């Protein structure tokens, strides 16, 4: 149990506190927990931040104190080179914030260390999902359905056209392309935090035990995953090896390096990309992707809507993504919902 000192200054509040849920306010720069003057995933530096997971648009640097899982704090330290103000909160642990607000961190199944945050105050329960998915992922703890009054959900893939196929199918396509082109390599663009490690772990699960070659920008994050007990098998750095050695192998790079000069050092690369956006042909074409792999760390449409049904909140608040469609779905299913206009979140999983 982690407790914040009562010495923290109480915020000045200019609106009545008696209305239901007035203690939780969506503001353009994040979700404000008013009695505690804490912010969830704020997009600018604040005194006290609760951070759901390590992706840059959720985990900004420079906060006075940051309450997050140990994994997320380690990821933030890797990125910002400091762990000043880090306050670890483990999965299942509840902390008490000023103003008598209780916060519990619950696995979100998105990336290593990702958490939903359950906030409780005056008998009211609010869950903030951050980013999440419902599919099994060997690199992180699975999402847990948590009943609540207000469910604050993401909507990155909030359109009915988004269906992520079983990851086994995508791995099979990747390995088939690799074995039919033994003189090439398959270059897979994958987000450096989460996606890359999941693709590697899934390849291992599919029986691929060859060395996997990494772009330099991937190395540290993979090591971090391994330090937290995620096994990734033999990994090598592209920069340490010759073109010849990489023929017939898989190379993983950040999406930004796919069409970059960097890829010229690879032997006849076939360009692949692991992203939920690959469901749409034009998105693949925009990036000159030859082998689109539909793999996402976010919930697809069926998961988003099923989760709302399972959590069964009084009201859903939709943070970022394609909020209009999810809002419409809620309306069609007689569920109360509103879209929040938060700034600073990007379509990750790019």
């Amino acid at each position, binding site marked *: 149990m982690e407790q914040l000192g009562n010495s923290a200054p109480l915020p000045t509040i200019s609106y009545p506190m008696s209305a239901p849920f007035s203690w939780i306010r969506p503001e353009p720069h994040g979700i404000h927990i008013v009695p505690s003057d804490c912010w969830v995933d704020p997009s600018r530096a604040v005194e006290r931040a609760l951070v759901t997971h390590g992706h840059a648009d959720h985990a900004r640097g420079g906060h006075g104190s940051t309450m997050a899982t140990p994994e997320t704090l380690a990821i933030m330290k890797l990125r910002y080179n400091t762990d000043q103000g880090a306050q670890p909160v483990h999965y299942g642990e509840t902390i008490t914030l000023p103003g008598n607000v209780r916060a519990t961190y619950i696995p979100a199944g998105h990336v290593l260390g990702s958490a939903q945050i359950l906030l409780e105050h005056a008998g009211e329960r609010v869950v903030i999902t951050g980013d999440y998915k419902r599919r099994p992922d060997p690199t992180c703890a699975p999402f847990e359905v948590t009943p609540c009054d207000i469910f604050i959900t993401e909507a990155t893939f909030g*359109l*009915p*056209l988004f269906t992520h196929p079983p990851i086994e199918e995508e791995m099979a396509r990747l390995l088939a392309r690799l074995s039919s082109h033994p003189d090439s390599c398959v270059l897979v663009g994958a987000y450096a935090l989460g996606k890359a490690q999941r693709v590697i772990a899934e390849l291992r699960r599919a029986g691929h035990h060859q060395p996997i070659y990494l772009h330099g920008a991937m190395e540290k994050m993979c090591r971090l995953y391994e330090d937290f007990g995620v096994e990734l098998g033999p990994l090598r750095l592209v920069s340490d090896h010759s073109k010849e050695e990489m023929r017939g192998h898989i190379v993983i790079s950040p999406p930004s390096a796919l069409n970059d000069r960097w890829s010229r050092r690879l032997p006849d690369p076939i360009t692949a990309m692991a992203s939920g956006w690959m469901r749409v042909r*034009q998105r693949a074409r925009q990036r000159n992707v030859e082998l689109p792999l539909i793999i996402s760390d976010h919930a697809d449409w069926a998961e988003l809507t099923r989760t709302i049904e399972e959590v069964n909140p009084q009201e859903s608040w939709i943070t970022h993504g394609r909020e209009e469609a999810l809002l419409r779905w809620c309306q069609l299913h007689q569920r109360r919902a509103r879209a929040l206009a938060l700034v600073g979140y990007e379509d990750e999983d790019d």
Partner: protein
Amino acid sequence: MERFAALLDALVYTSSRNTKLALIGEYLRETPDPDRGWALAALTDGLDFKAVKASTIRNLMTERVDPLLWSLSRDFVGDTAETASLLWPDPPGETPPAPTVSETVALLQGMTRATVQHDLPALLDRLDVSGRYALIKLATGAMRIGISARLGKVAFAQSFGVSVDDVEEYWHGIAPPYTELFDWAAHGKAPPDTENMPLFRPFMLAHPLEDGTVDLSDYVAEWKWDGIRVQLVHAGGETRLYSRSGDDITATFPEMAEALTIPAVLDGELLVQGGHQGGKEGGAASFNALQQRLGRKNVSKKMLSELPAFVRLYDALGLEGEDLRALPWERRRERLEAFLPRLPATRFDLSQIVEARDFAHLAQIREGTRADAIEGLMLKRRDSPYVAGRKTGLWYKWKRDPLLIDCVLMYAQRGSGKRSSFYSDYTFGCWDGDPDKGAELLPVGKAYSGFTDAELKWLDKYVRQHTVNRFGPVRETDKSLTFEVAFDSVHASKRHKSGLAMRFPRIHRIRKDKPPHEADRIATLRAMVRD
């Protein structure tokens, strides 16, 4: 159908021209008749099925998916066929076997407005996502997957080792599934007989003259008139007028069809009679005048008398049964000049040769083209044969420099095709007075091009972050960004509130440094009108 669907997917996911040619070639060699002919038609000219339109697909979908969810999805994907293929509910139970391409075509041809509501869903239920995509693309006749008709013909020619010029020649005389074409190319039979048909011949095109110069002893200069390039063909007692893309526009300009009664294939600029381009002697009205006649199926007597068309001749590809295309330009020109008196003078004249002492003098003349409202100059090698397409070193177009004006971004809309899901179509405006004294912005134009991919990404993000209003697919921005817009000319127009319409506007530069109140006023733009 699976093989065709796989071909489409493979074509979508490759950007290499050679790979595309190889993929199409392989398909054409390995697929039996008439499947391959239908597929080739779908890839090139497109097929037309009376009962199936884009609206048919939309209607089928909105019966199965909430209309708002459909339109949000369609807006995101930017392609009706693809959206429908993704949203179509998989049928319960075992899927019946997928149809072949020929079977699909036969079924589509058999559908009527009354039966399509039932028959098309039954067909969609026999296919997976890729198959549905291929089916809808085939059925609605608009592939838009980055395969030009030309590429399809080149692939055909390469695949069977025949000349692409021959393919182009025979192509327009026969209909899908092109069985005679395959018999000739794949089985060595006699080529289709096209002698007495008023067929379209592919145009010879010009490269832009970037920075170089040419030697005027080798090249001749002509004005680049501002109309539309056309080919007028008379053969077998019939006359046809074709646009640059080979579309038959004879019905839109009946006076031109009547004017040619001698077998010939003529290349020229279609214009409306007037005194705008090149002054009184120029004899041609502005492009605006011509535009009022384009795209009409029925032409009124009034139109014919108020906006009479004529063709300013550039070249002759054939005269009285003789093919002139292999001759040097100078010989063809002589033949054309000798032929001209046999044509009605109200409907034809000859594109003038621009005389210049040397290249520097020619550059001076080009400077003056703006005052004459002419687009620029054409430079043609005196010994060039008439060859299809753009051949380096033979013909150049040398347009005058564009006009520039600073405008403010007002609205943005998602693009289509490769740019779908990006806000890539921009409406911009100029001030109707002094912006510091409460003047307003009025839209003056729309641009879809001129920016790099990196700039597009930046603009897309900018639009999302500066949206103040949404109207369906359109976002209104907070009018905080200045564009330097390049355009060829500006004309008076009743269609726009500003009373002005630009030709070929494109984003020249994004002026992040320039505050919007310093953008130009309507009056500045109006002063550039040369109507």
